[in-house]
């Protein structure tokens, strides 16, 4: 996978370096501390597992360590007299067996989110513990003994090596995966499932792969636990232990490998020290609880986040120089007037990029869209305008597969796509969102890579980055300004090489110069990328510069459509906006200026584009 090397190389090197140091240190430790260190590696692997599902993929699942029981039982069973499968291999077998179980555990996550998922997974933890105690599953009895390997090394060095080499391997896997499309998909679904689907990411597959890999990791750790403690004791997977590990993972920020490593070492060393000082292990647990609550209140306090900031700080000087090179805004070339927008020498008989016919959407008794039809030919920019609440975004949702039910037919390049789910439609039609649904942690390049259709080359991504005007590919998106992020959202659509692109209010909140720059780029899109473009906008200046034809919606019905100038001159269009007979052009111009200045969010308070704190308000009513 291209770009993989670049994305993973630094963390991989760092991780391997640290672990090599840890392993080397092991030779100098006493037998007892080797044992403690080995157990630390095991908890670190549990941390990787929790971090992958919760830290990276944003799913509040509590049961990851409990799935480790599967690995424990497998290793215990295979180590019995009947079988004798030696240790590294029984670990792999156990980890592989856990994969379908992890997938099964992930099924509820397809429909349940957040709190609901936490509740179900908590119940699952208790079920696993109950099954462990019942001792009916092969290998789960306490009396199934397993011997730790020695590999002809003194003391516990054999076990230490096994555990830390396991961590290296598994952490390496998670780092590589994090930079791959799977990992990017996990970050995407953590941020916004809709945006992910709109980029062509199958949300279901991303969730299940996260659960599958996490199960693999946890089961490997579970198998190592049995090797260390000698038997598959149910107490290893009791709910308090599992929840404590979860709390630790939060505290340490186990979504990153260094957080998982810190989790493991911290847990093992604190446990050992408490024992040495004759204090109860409950003290450690209580401290973890407090630490977790602290981090939940201040995510910056997570250990791995602090480490990353330190590292970033050290290299920040270098970064700042690069960041200053933002390319200048483009001006709208007089050559690019409406008439001159590249119309391809298209065959009039060929199918349009996007054809919507008879689209009707009801929300209960409210008819949001009423028999709407529109066409977006290749090489053209069609505008969709209308007052607030007219149904524009509903139309985009229906077209791109984000509405459960609608009637009518949507055709892309002549083919009907109504039966396809959103992420499949994203192969042929792409959309942007009114709100910023970019993925802040990704770099511009990573973001585009995630959205790209398969087979997209690095140079194609580069081309789109240049088209969008983003020179700074190494900074995470959350450090870029709104305008660039907007453009990158559009760029992400383009990397999908769709037949049609629907852009939802791209100019909202932009200044006059920025709008012109945007207009310049938008007009290029159909010709340069061979698609049709639908632009939803309130900014009439932009609309007149960019769109060859216009469709006007009001109360869910199409009240006008045709060439831009004609439509804008119509009185009923002005009336729809203002309820007034004043001459359309001048009034519309004034309105456009006002709206751009106020930066009003269309759709009113009910729209999701509200401050984060308000969005959290209406809880509990789902």
């Amino acid at each position, binding site marked *: 996978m291209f770009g993989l090397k670049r994305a993973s190389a630094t963390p991989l090197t760092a991780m391997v370096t640290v672990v090599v140091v840890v392993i080397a240190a092991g030779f100098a430790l006493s037998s007892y*501390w080797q044992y403690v260190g080995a157990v630390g590696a095991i908890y670190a692997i549990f941390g990787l597992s929790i971090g992958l599902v919760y830290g990276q993929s944003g799913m509040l699942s509590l049961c990851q360590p409990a799935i480790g029981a599967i690995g424990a039982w497998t290793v215990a069973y295979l180590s019995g007299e009947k079988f004798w499968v030696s240790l590294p291999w029984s670990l792999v077998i156990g980890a592989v067996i856990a994969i379908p179980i992890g997938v099964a555990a992930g099924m509820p996550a397809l429909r349940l989110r957040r709190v609901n998922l936490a509740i179900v997974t908590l119940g699952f933890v208790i079920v696993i513990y109950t099954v462990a105690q019942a001792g*009916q599953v092969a290998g789960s009895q*306490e009396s199934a003994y397993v011997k730790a390997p020695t590999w002809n090394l003194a003391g516990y060095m054999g076990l230490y090596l096994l555990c830390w080499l396991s961590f290296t391997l598994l952490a390496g896997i998670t780092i590589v995966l994090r930079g791959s499309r799977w990992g990017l998909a996990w970050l995407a679904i953590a941020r916004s499932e809709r945006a992910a689907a709109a980029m062509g990411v199958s949300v279901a597959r991303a969730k299940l792969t996260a659960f599958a890999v996490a199960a693999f990791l946890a089961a490997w750790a579970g198998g190592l636990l049995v090797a260390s403690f000698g*038997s598959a004791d149910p*107490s290893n997977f009791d709910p308090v232990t599992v929840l404590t590990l979860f709390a630790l993972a939060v505290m340490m920020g186990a979504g990153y490998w260094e957080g998982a490593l810190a989790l493991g070492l911290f847990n093992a060393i604190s446990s050992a*020290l408490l024992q*040495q000082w*004759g204090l109860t292990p409950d003290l450690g647990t209580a401290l973890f609880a407090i630490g977790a609550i602290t981090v939940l209140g201040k995510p910056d306090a997570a250990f791995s986040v602090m480490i990353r900031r330190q590292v970033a700080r050290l290299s920040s000087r270098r970064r700042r120089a690069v960041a200053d090179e933002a390319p200048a805004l483009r001006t709208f070339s007089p050559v690019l007037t409406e008439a001159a927008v590249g119309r391809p020498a298209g065959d009039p008989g060929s199918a349009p990029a996007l054809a919507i016919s008879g689209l009707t959407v009801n929300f209960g008794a409210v008819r949001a869209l009423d028999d709407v039809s529109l066409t977006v030919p290749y090489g053209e920019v069609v505008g969709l305008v209308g007052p607030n609440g007219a149904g524009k975004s509903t139309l985009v949702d229906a077209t791109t597969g984000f509405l459960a039910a609608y009637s009518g037919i949507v055709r892309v390049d002549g083919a009907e796509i109504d039966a396809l789910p959103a992420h499949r439609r994203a192969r042929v039609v792409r959309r942007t969102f009114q709100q910023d649904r970019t993925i802040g942690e990704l770099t511009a390049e990573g973001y585009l890579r995630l959205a790209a259709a398969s087979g997209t080359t690095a140079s194609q991504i580069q081309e789109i980055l240049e088209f969008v005007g983003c020179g700074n590919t190494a900074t995470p998106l959350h450090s870029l300004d709104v305008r660039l992020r907007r453009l990158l959202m559009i760029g992400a659509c383009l990397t999908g090489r769709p037949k049609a692109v629907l852009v939802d209010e791209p100019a909202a909140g932009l200044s006059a110069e920025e709008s012109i720059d945007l207009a310049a780029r938008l007009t290029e899109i159909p010709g340069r990328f061979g698609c049709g473009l639908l632009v939803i906008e309130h900014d009439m200046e932009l609309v007149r510069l960019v769109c060859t034809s216009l469709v006007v919606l009001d109360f869910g019905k199409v009240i006008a459509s045709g060439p831009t100038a004609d439509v804008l001159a119509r009185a009923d269009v002005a009336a729809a906006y203002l309820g007034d007979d004043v001459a359309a052009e001048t009034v519309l111009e004034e309105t456009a200026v006002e709206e751009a200045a106020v930066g009003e969010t269309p759709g009113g308070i009910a729209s999701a584009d509200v401050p984060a704190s308000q969005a959290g308000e209406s809880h509990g009513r789902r």
Partner: protein
Amino acid sequence: MSLFTRPRRTIMRSLAVTGAAAVVLAAAACASSSSSGASGGSSSSGGSNAPIKVAQISTLSGGYPFGDVVPGTQAYFKLINSEGGVDGHQIQFLYGDDKGTASQAGELARLYVLQDHVVGMVGNTSLADCNTNANFYSANSIAVVGGAPEPACFTQANWDPVNAGPYYGKVVQWQYTFDVLKPTHVCEIEQNDPTSIPYYNQLRSWFESQNPGVAAKFTEITYTNDATQNPTPAVAHAKALGCDLVELSTVAPNMVAFIKAAKSVGLDATFITLGSAYDTSVPGTLGSLGDPGALGPNDKGVFVGAELAAVNSANPQVQLMAKTFKADGVQADFWSEIGWVSAATFVDALKEGASHYDITTAKGVLQALQNMTPYNSGFAATNLDFGSGSSHPGNRGSQMLMIKNGTWVVAPGQNDGSFETVDGTLPAASSS
């Protein structure tokens, strides 16, 4: 929070983290070079007056706590030390709580053996220790004398239980029940312990074959995985079945809960429990519920098969223990007795072997125990003994006690004086 707006706070925080990490590592480094533990102390071994360092890993909290075993052990060692120790060596005693978990049990064992260099484990009464550390102890020649709540403790060469254990205890219980109490219908409310149930079933078949007519009177109710669930449903079930005697094998608080639940549900039955329920505070807690007839006409009383002699027994050794406990403020119950008797067995073997073996080393201690002369301490039905076998069955009888006038008294009708011992030999566990 941007890096650039509050750099100083970031520095402070990273300094704090680094500092904390340094403190932890320094402490670890210091701790690794010297020993520590509940009673603190220095390292080094050998030498003519070096202390004999021993440790205990017990389940002191969590689902099934055996709280008083540590004070019981400590009381004995304190007494011995005040008398000059063993062969001139003072006993140094460390202990840890494994909370019934394999992880804590495993780590504590390695701490005491590898780091603190103890020469033996005394009084271990833990749910996890026997399973988790079996191989570890034998690999390091560590002998263990303790209380065994798990079947695994009865099958190891290095582990000598001082109690009778659940198997002997059960058979004794059945014997006494059918020989003396003669119920019409017995409900055995059993905990679901998957490792022991197969052997229990085997023993029951054996017992039933030895005692015809018994099988018809038995009903087994498997009620839960651990001693912490509500006993009411099981008790209601027993009432529905019409049982007039309930057999339990659980700890004292749980037995008290069962009897209270029986009262509230209206179950009229005798209660008999394994020695794990022996606790001198039970009669006080139960109050009048402990008296015969409290639950109804079928209620012949509350019985317990104490695996070691009752604390108020007349035997001088037991009286010494009772006196010491009283002076030291130690609660007298099954667990503190186990602690005391384990320590006593250990010390007696060392005293005997001091002239032949180097009892300041683990190997020497193990040899001393393996070669000790069995003796009757008065605490148990059979002789206290370690021996060199590949497993040690513990003592083979119990002292049946019942509550009368607010205290435990020796129950009448036992077959071996004040103890009830098993008639015949128990069949070995068949592998299944």
